[in-house]
């Protein structure tokens, strides 16, 4: 199932991300794509809001992974915020033990997920943000297969 949304600015992108994030649960992965300045990190901030993350959310371009502590239904949950932009080979992902994050019981958000499609879990939600105007963004969301979730 595909959903489209036209955002007129970063505040709307973040709000739309909050609505989207209400459907997420432990073990989910969100694959984010879109060019530079499309609003991938802003979208991540909206997700982080829903999980009560108090830390500043910035793109982990150089750190590869930021881990935020949040809560979900009164219990603590980890948000794994990846940026695959600087990675060159699939092996680099393998060597950080990527599957233990993607198939663990936290929530993974991956910017530049299209760099390594094969590394994405089958149950990933896919979110693409297209720049269609100075502040306007077209957000397209497609669901993954919930049956392939690591934790039920």
């Amino acid at each position, binding site marked *: 199932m*595909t959903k489209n949304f036209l955002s007129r600015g970063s505040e709307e992108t973040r709000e739309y991300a909050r609505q989207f994030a209400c459907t997420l649960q432990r073990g989910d992965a969100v*694959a984010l*794509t879109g060019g530079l300045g499309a609003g991938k990190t802003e979208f991540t901030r909206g997700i982080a809001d829903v999980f009560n993350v108090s830390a500043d959310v910035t793109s982990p371009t150089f750190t590869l992974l930021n881990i935020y502590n949040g809560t979900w239904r009164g219990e603590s949950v980890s948000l794994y915020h990846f940026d695959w932009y600087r990675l060159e080979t*699939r092996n680099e992902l*393998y060597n950080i*033990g990527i*599957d*233990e994050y*993607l*198939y663990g019981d936290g929530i993974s958000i991956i910017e530049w*997920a*299209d760099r390594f*499609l*094969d*590394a*994405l*879990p*089958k*149950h990933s939600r*896919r979110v*693409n943000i297209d720049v269609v105007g100075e502040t306007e963004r077209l957000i*397209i969301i*497609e669901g993954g297969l919930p049956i*392939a*979730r*690591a934790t*039920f």
Partner: protein
Amino acid sequence: MSVAVQADDRVVLKVGSVWQKTSEEIIPLIDTALNEAGLSPHDLDAIVISEGPGSFTALRIGFSTAKGLCFALEKPLVAVGTLDAIAASVAHDVESETIVSLIYSKADEFYVGIASRNTLIYQAFTTDEPSVKKTYLTISELEERLGKGTDAVVVGRVAERWRDVLNEKFHWKDATQFSAQTLLGLGEEKLRRKRFTALETAEPFYIKQFEAKTSERKFFG
């Protein structure tokens, strides 16, 4: 994670709580097991490790610990394949000619070992040819590989939610008894044949599924 010490015919087995705590529990468990066996680390003949496949982090912790101890104590390291050990643990209890061992990876995907029962019992380690063929399959790929009405016994230790699925599709057998103790038999056999693993190059055995198969997935659709 578990630790077993064999002293003559006596075995002391210690089991950790959850794999996420491997790094904090492994050394105290080794210490307790040795104490209960009345041994000092210097009394050991060799250290046996299950080399995987399995949890990325837990395997690395196991290898770092085992290699560190081997270096310090100047003992040989014996690596035993985890799929081999699971298959061997039931070889004497089943009739079927083919034994398939399973380790859960993620989603609906498993590490798979396929072996002949006779080879496991009579020919293990007699040649350089591995007695268990290893691969990486989804559950439906495994079904296809084995074929309808297969009499192969499928054995492993899996989470509750997979047990019913596996039971319905195959002659399933729970390897509930599988632990570090199970490694001792194969380990002893390898030790006897002096099939050691070089410390400077020893590393976990991972089946990298992304190298084993390629797909052409698209971002949407």
